[in-house]
């Protein structure tokens, strides 16, 4: 039996998708001026509703099942839904700036983004391998299309092809891992798999399946050595899709990774802790060093994203609730700061821009608003207090020092210095005097201003007063690690 009331948030998003599709079919062009803002407002309202418990969870430690136990709502899942709704709202607002609400394909793009967000919401609640697979693929398919969305731009299509082929290969690996896990555990259900992991931890098939699952998710979160696609896909993708890649797809990867590591395969934690920590350190350094000599902002942000993935992997590698909570906090900080950077990018150039660092020159003069957003976002990513990125890094390194060891902490610190260096390169480019050939920028719209202000406020609030979100994060972590 399915109880639709448990699924009310998901159903609302599906309703929104259909509304946009129908509206696209019937509405006149002139009446579309605030579609993006309207959809985003609806999503944010839903996020607020979800943050308040959405009438599903009576208290923070409750667990509500539906769909024969295949769908679980607990504090963790609810937090994932809030995150997904907010991130989707950001992506939709960015889309309404590029290509613009009256461009052909705008409604469809929004529908796909809603689909990706829906995928993440279901993923947070998945309790069996089928829901897990299907929701992950819902996200993936939407993203393949979104990356290749600018069909008049060869680079966008190239990025789409690369992302699709690489992603499909990774998802085949993931699927093979699922098959092995299913074979070893005898069931698709997470609960039974957990029992199997506890009682049959010597089963090679189970371990192999688990390893392949990790490889497949390593692709999603762009962990070394599965991260090869990231810079190419980021560089080719249009900015809103790039935002969806890093604000939805990657967090979703971390969410399900946390679910697998801390819930399903928790009995094996002595086995996964080391490899995850090593992968985290390698990812961090790769991202921190690889971006040093980049001259393209999008590519640079891809490396930056890799480096942040390393931090979150290191957080997961400390098998404690604080580790999970630190990871969740880091994700939130990443959402806010990267969101600001993407917003500034959307405002600073038109849809076809390549985002060479030189193109940013004179931004400080042309639009202090956008330059400020860019600065704040980059400092947030770099972990400068009092922005949220600082406590994210501090908490992660604190966990690493006490759980994974000294060398990993030193690696984290080194990677952070490296990436801070290239953020400053971007800042310098944005503040330098205008060069010839830098593209002119359109005036910053009202919705973009509102988005910037909201993200900046969140970044400051969460950073300067972490207690404001910490309670919710701890509840989520405790719900996960039962």
């Amino acid at each position: 039996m399915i109880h639709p009331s448990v699924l009310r948030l998901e159903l609302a998003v599906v309703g929104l998708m259909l509304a946009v599709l129908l509206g696209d079919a019937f509405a006149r062009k002139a009446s579309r001026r605030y579609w993006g803002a309207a959809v985003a407002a609806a999503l944010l309202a839903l996020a607020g509703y979800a943050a308040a418990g959405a009438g599903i969870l009576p208290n923070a430690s409750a667990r509500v099942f539906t769909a024969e136990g295949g769908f679980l709502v607990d504090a963790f899942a609810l937090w994932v839904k809030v995150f997904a709704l907010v991130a989707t709202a950001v992506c939709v607002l960015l889309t309404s700036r590029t290509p613009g609400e009256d461009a052909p394909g705008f409604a469809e793009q929004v529908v796909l983004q809603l689909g990706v967000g829906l995928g993440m919401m279901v993923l947070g609640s998945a309790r069996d391998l089928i829901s897990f697979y299907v929701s992950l693929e819902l996200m993936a398919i939407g993203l393949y299309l979104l990356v290749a969305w600018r069909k008049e731009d060869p680079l966008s299509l190239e990025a789409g092809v690369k992302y699709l082929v690489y992603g499909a290969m990774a998802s085949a690996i993931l699927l093979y891992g699922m098959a092995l896990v299913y074979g070893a555990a005898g069931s698709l259900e997470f609960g039974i798999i957990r029992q199997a992991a506890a009682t049959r931890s010597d089963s090679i098939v189970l371990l192999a399946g688990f390893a392949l699952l990790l490889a497949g998710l390593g692709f999603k979160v762009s962990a070394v050595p599965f991260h090869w696609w990231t810079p190419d896909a980021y560089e080719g993708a249009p900015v809103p899709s790039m935002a969806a890649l890093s604000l939805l797809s990657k967090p979703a990867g971390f969410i399900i990774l946390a679910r697998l590591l801390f819930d399903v395969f928790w009995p094996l934690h002595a086995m996964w802790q080391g490899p995850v920590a090593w992968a985290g350190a390698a990812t961090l350094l790769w991202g921190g060093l690889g971006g040093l000599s980049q001259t393209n902002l999008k590519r640079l942000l891809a490396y930056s994203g890799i480096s942040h993935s390393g931090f979150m992997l290191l957080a997961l590698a400390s098998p404690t609730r604080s580790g999970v909570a630190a990871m969740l906090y880091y994700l939130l900080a990443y959402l806010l700061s990267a969101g600001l950077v993407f917003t500034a990018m959307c405002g600073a150039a038109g849809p076809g821009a390549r985002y060479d660092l030189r193109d940013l020159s004179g931004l400080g003069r042309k639009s202090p608003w956008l330059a400020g957003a860019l600065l704040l976002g980059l400092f947030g990513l770099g972990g400068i207090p009092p922005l949220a990125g600082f406590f994210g890094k501090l908490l992660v390194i604190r966990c690493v020092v006490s759980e994974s060891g000294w060398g990993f902490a030193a690696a984290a610190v080194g990677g952070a210095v490296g990436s801070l260096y290239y953020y400053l390169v971007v800042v310098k480019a944005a503040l330098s005097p205008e060069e010839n050939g830098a593209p002119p920028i359109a005036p910053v719209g009202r919705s973009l201003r509102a988005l910037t202000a909201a993200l900046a406020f969140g970044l400051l609030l969460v950073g300067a007063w972490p207690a404001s979100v910490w309670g919710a994060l701890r509840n989520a972590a405790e719900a996960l690690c039962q």
Partner: protein
Amino acid sequence: MGHAFLLLLPLTAFAVGGLFLRRRHALAATVSTASALASAAWATWLAWAKADPAAGAVWLDAGGFTVVFRLEWDALARLMAAVVTWVGAAIHVYSWGYMRGDPGTGRFFAFLSLFMFSMLGIVLAGNLVMMYVFWELVGLSSYLLIGFWHERASAADAGKKAFIVNKLGDFGFLLGILVVWTVLGTVDFLDLQAAAPTFRDRLAASPLGFLPLGAVALLLFCGAVGKSAQFPLHVWLPDAMEGPTPVSALIHAATMVAAGVYMLCRLFFLFALSPVALEAIAWTGGLTALLAALWTVAQDDIKRVLAYSTLSQLGYMVMAVGLASPHAAMFHLSTHAAFKALLFLGAGSVIVALHHEQDLWRMGGLWNRMRWTSVAFLVGMLALCGVPFFAGAASKDGILLVALRENRALFALGAFTALLTSLYMGRLFVAAFLGAPRGEAAARATENGWVMKGPLAVLALFSFAFAWRGGWAHDCLATLVGAPMEHAPAVVHAFFILIPLCGLLGAWALYREKPTDALGQLFPGLRRALASKFLFDEFYLWLVRGVQERFAAFLRGVDQWGVDGLGVRGVSLAAFCLGNVLRCFHSGSLQFYGFLLGLATAALLIFGVLR
């Protein structure tokens, strides 16, 4: 009560100025200056009343570790807060004159308020995490202010360099904080102080037991090395002079660079646990003091002379901490803040009057044209040289006395540095203010308005006042020190008087009436006239030119190629090379990516599962 206002005042000024007043320069300047003056008054009142701050609020409660937002208001904090707010207020006022007509004035004052907020945060921080947060914020505001004229590439680069070099030090600091946090389970200064005696045992028992105690202390010290620009991370400070001069005065002379010393004093109970670490700190400080003083003699830019001199004085303070005498360090910090700010503002006044001419050898003769500035500068100079009855004398002699008692080698080093100090300051004064004007701008220089003269006067007063009758300052010092001044034998005092005298006279003899620094092209008349002094002159010349300057040039080379090149730049070069190697994997070939993915998966299975 109400200590939070000290933070809120500048924060509000920053928020208001940064968000709403970027174009309305006068209003932004008023708001910012008013906040600075108000916080100075408020800090004084709080210190007078010896009011206790309110209990803290929980800032972060992350399972196992809790951080409480608590403000500290002990004697150390009171003294430092007074220094920061008063020097800050004077410089705010001065900036009105200095920044007049600059299109970014609003932004400038907003950043200045941000800096005041962060700096007061460091001073008032009640625990290590808070201190680190504000520490980083100070770094950020310094970055913004150095790169204030960001459209000038050198300024943007200098800002970046300062930020990154500071970050290098900060990360050692952060690791140190994390070790302390992990081992002692708390970050609050009071709890830490209570738990410090058990630190050695608990460290040995923790998973970090392989770390010697001294290493932990040195990690924490890394923060001070970066922020206080100690050798070998000193490279950023001279470049930081790209910022506007009030910024140099406030941040890179009086307050921010002193934050490192303040932190050392604040955490002295931890450093005191490890004699090895103290020894290392003392030698780092001493070495910085000496090397910087040597380099200074070869500088021609008026701001750079002062910058290197700041390095040298910071070295003194760090040395004092290393000699287990934090109160002497704090005393010198306070006096130095006053007279170094005075010197910088004087230099800024000259620079403005000369339309941004900074070369010493194109100045000259300013004594007659800018009497007010010259006198103020003279006071600052005498204070820096340690001439009796000026602020620097008491504090610097205090440090030297400690050194005399604790470590003779460092005393010799410190005394020699003091000699060099008076030599280069004399050189600066002689070249810039005396003699005939050597440039068009210098010939037509005029004194600036009261907005700039006023702060000079106030700071000059401070440079006197500390010396014999501090009143409230002395009270603070007394609480801090136990005994404000050490007593020394008359011989030693005589020696201390002799040092600046020799230096100044030497400078007078060497540089008087010289058109350039190139003494090799001395006019022949001087030779004939001073035949009797020839030997002495030659000797001094040989000493200064032949040995000392070459040595200084050599050291500068070592600095540029060795420390800056191999150390800082070498690390970054290696990082870039490695980064480029890593980039090569991203060849763009889909087949290659697939190949790597497949191999990585197989490797994971073979090494992870099958083993």
